[in-house]
């Protein structure tokens, strides 16, 4: 919906794809612009509460620390369980961040407006999920090698570890967002969120931990890594629809 004629009110050189044409009414915003608007807004909001953004990361570190304390300080023994521990800790840390993914917007009435915006709700929610991944998943990906060293994960495994976590936390964010959308209107939804989301995330855990384990033994990782990527693609295609359906139900009253 581009127009070459000078529009009545275009003064800012914005990157919007649509310009109003006289007599037809303002043109609707394009999909890419919607995504960027949502991500920018959420990042702006998150930056004002940076401590809240870092909480999942600290939680991740604490959970990992619990294992040596609970099991044994011997690095050789910890190395055997390190892949699994890092992944479980990542799942739990992701859950902590999911708690507040939609809650603020639902509580101040912004989510209602999104449902009524006439734009695809699945895209709006998916854009929020992308931000969630950027603020909660990506820090985990970066911190995991450093924290994993405490469990004996060698430096040679770092690329595989980060790559796997990057893909895996993407799936975790999407599945978690579906659960968050279902439980956002419930009073004590956080425990229920864990109950709903963790069983669904088990395949991601199985394949992700396996990849890291294989890498630590110097074996090829392509098999399970491909499966992990395939799962992410599946969730990317179907997840936003489920999120939108769940959110419409949650926003009803």
């Amino acid at each position, binding site marked *: 919906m581009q127009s070459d004629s000078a529009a009545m009110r275009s003064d800012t050189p914005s990157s919007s794809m649509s310009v109003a044409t006289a007599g037809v009414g303002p043109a609707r915003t394009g999909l890419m612009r919607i995504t960027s608007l949502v991500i920018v807004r959420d990042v702006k909001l998150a930056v004002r509460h940076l401590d809240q953004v870092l909480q999942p990361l600290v939680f991740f570190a604490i959970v990992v620390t619990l294992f040596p304390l609970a099991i044994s300080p011997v690095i050789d023994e910890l190395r055997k369980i390190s892949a699994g521990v890092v992944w479980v800790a990542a799942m739990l840390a992701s859950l902590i961040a999911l708690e507040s993914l939609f809650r603020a917007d639902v509580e101040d009435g912004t989510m209602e407006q999104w449902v009524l915006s006439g734009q695809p709700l699945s895209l709006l929610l998916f854009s929020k999920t992308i931000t969630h991944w950027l603020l909660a998943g990506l820090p985990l990906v970066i911190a995991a090698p450093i924290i994993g060293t405490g469990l004996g994960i060698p430096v040679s495994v770092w690329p595989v570890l980060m790559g796997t976590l990057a893909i895996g936390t993407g799936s975790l964010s999407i599945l978690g967002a579906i659960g968050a959308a279902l439980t956002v209107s419930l009073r004590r939804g956080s425990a229920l969120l864990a109950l*709903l989301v*963790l*069983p*669904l995330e088990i*395949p991601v855990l*199985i394949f992700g931990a396996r990849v890291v384990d294989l890498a630590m033994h110097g074996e090829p990782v392509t098999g399970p890594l491909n499966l992990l990527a395939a799962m992410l693609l599946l969730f990317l295609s*179907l997840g936003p629809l489920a999120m939108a359906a*769940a959110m419409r139900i*949650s926003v009803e009253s």
Partner: protein
Amino acid sequence: MTSNTESEVTAAPRSGSRWLWFHKLSSPPYAFRTAGNLRPWFFWPSLILMAFALYGGLILAPPDYQQKDAFRIIYVHVPSAILSLQVYVVMAVAAAVGLIWRMKLAHALAAAVAPLGAWFTFLCLATGSIYGKPMWGTWWEWEPRLTSELIMLFLYLGFMALRNSFDDLQRADRAAAVLAIVGVVNVPIVKFSVQWWNSLHQGPTFSKLDAPSMTASMAWPWGLMMLAFVLYFAAVTCDRLRSEILRRERNASWLAESLRSR
């Protein structure tokens, strides 16, 4: 809660008598009566078949040369495993129908079968554990079927917990329906990944508990028991569906009249 007019007058059938059956089925009073009528036809045959199957399985079938009598648990363990998965599919399909075509009755069916599926799953876990003790010496093994049944149990519990968390019944129905659909898409993925995970580490498996590896004299009680379980499930579902209908239609006039006319 359907309006009074909806319950009594079913919507006009779309085309011909093919859809008349479907639309009649979606009327709560019709379903209420039909479920009540069908129940004895499910229940008594299931008990009879169960009696035969138990006799055949516990007494007639010869003891397995390796596992002696322990294998007999298979007659309960495998049907309950199969049913726990089938019921989840029934639940998810009913929930999807309810969500897409806005059929109240479909939601009622999903709500009715969920606890049954959970019980079947629990039964499978319990019998698996009982089987495991003489076989492996422990009350639990991370065997692929048991592990995926455990995850199924969590999925059922999640479905029921989500339903119970909503005050409004209709919202509960719809939210749980979304969850059921997401769950049913994930179930094959979960089962595959658990199978794969178990095979990697050469973990324990209850291979003897699979139906095809049985001889004929062991097999027929298993078949009967499977049928008996399905009929029993249908009978209890009729009961539970009727109480779900009662719950949802408690203010509808058709119900008051049918109670008055007794």
